């Protein structure tokens, strides 16, 4: 399996900073806006953005983690049951502006499930989608992001992984290309 670095630590930091400024352009001082990271990997993007936004705006920003396991469309289509992660949304999303955050946008199925899961917490005024890496031209569903860190062209057999200093020990985005005969997770 060959790997290639799409973004290194410096580039990733620049991208996150740009995304934060783009968010401020639209959401101003975040009075009515909430960041929601999708479990398991979107929460790291959300945590970083929250930190940057708070240092720019000088105020605390509401954020939460959302697990989508129970809303997925591939339950019982896999060998083992899908196991859930933690959801912590201890506030109402009623009439709020929600920014849904994930690391990689691929088929769009996770986001579809995320939207369903989010709506069980109330009726938000608006939902926007922020994605760190958009694997474009690979959608199964009509879903597009409002804020994109970087767009990449990939094959279905390839895999994109976002790694974080807190977990993998290094900030970077990788592209893994598998052998063509290896079946991809589709």
């Amino acid at each position, binding site marked *: 399996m060959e790997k290639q670095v799409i973004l290194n630590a410096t580039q990733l930091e620049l991208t996150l900073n740009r995304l934060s400024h783009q968010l401020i352009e639209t959401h101003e001082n975040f009075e009515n806006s909430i960041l929601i990271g999708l479990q398991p990997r979107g929460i790291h993007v959300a945590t970083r953005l929250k930190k940057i936004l708070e240092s720019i705006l000088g105020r605390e920003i509401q954020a939460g983690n959302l*697990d989508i*396991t*129970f*809303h*997925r469309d591939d*339950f*019982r*289509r896999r060998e*083992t*049951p*899908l*196991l*859930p*992660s*933690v*959801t912590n949304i201890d506030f*109402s999303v009623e009439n709020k502006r929600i920014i849904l955050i994930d690391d990689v946008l691929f088929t769009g199925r996770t986001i579809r499930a995320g939207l*369903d*899961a989010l*709506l*069980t*917490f*109330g009726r938000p005024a608006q939902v926007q989608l922020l994605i760190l890496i958009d694997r474009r031209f690979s959608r199964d569903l009509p879903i597009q992001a409002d804020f994109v860190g970087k767009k990449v062209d990939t094959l279905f057999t390839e895999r994109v992984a976002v790694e974080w200093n807190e977990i993998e020990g290094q900030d970077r985005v990788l592209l893994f290309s598998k052998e063509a005969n290896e079946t991809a997770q589709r």
Partner: protein
Amino acid sequence: MKQLSVDHLTGIVDLSTQDIELILETAQRFKEVINRPIKKVPSLRDITIANVFFENSTRTKLSFELAQKRLSADIVNFSASNSSLKKGETLVDTINNILAMKVDMVVLRHPNPGAAKFLSEKVNAKVINAGDGTHEHPTQALLDAFSIQEKLGSIKGKKVVIVGDILHSRVALSNIYCLQKLGAEVMVCGPSTLIPKYIDQLGVKVSHNLRTALEWCDVANMLRIQLERQDGAYFPTLREYAMQFGLDKNMLDSLSKEIVIMHPGPINRGVEISSDVADSKQSIILDQVENGVAIRMAVIYLLAGRIER
């Protein structure tokens, strides 16, 4: 990825410690779900479950039904009072008739010990035991463990006493297995007529004195006297039982530490537990009921993941 090692939940005795921990962990997520404004998830919308109850039940049946509805499963209910069992049909035939209507899972309560296990070997569906006579009641034990863990942080090393009619109690047996697998110490306490002869073989302590037992424990699980199962005189009168083994506020307050009070319900106020104890701050009886739905959602969800498509 982690999954259950069993295809059916017929008894705690068949579960590994990992299985129990997986169920408790999954239940934690479902407890969060049932506290959302919209308490329903679509996971099991292609699954049909039959609740087959050959014995009366209010809370367990309600709890299973709510769990199934909150997972979006389709359900059918069947109870002995209006069944064709009276017309001479066998259990396996009854269930196979229900399964012929494309049912994926059966929740069974039956007066005969081993009924769920027997059924799981005979029919092509996942079976969940909702109580088989005086044998096991696994989801009750799981929700009790979940409630203890929630209240005390962990179960390992904790001391739990089960008080009352151990002989006729499926809750007691399932609880003993479950708590021991999670590393707790278990004691049973009651009149010697209501304690099975060789129960110490299961590795539990035995006491016939309520105060001694309560001073020893962190958690007391007070069981109901199951008059409907008692075929003889096990103690002179209910009043005498209540005086020796009933827990009242005076006794509770006189203990050297604060213990947690549990009860699987239904409560006979004034017999095994007095009203002020049942309603006290130390009682987690209603938390047990809430947790019951989350536990049953977890069990159904994890077993449904093992249904072949």
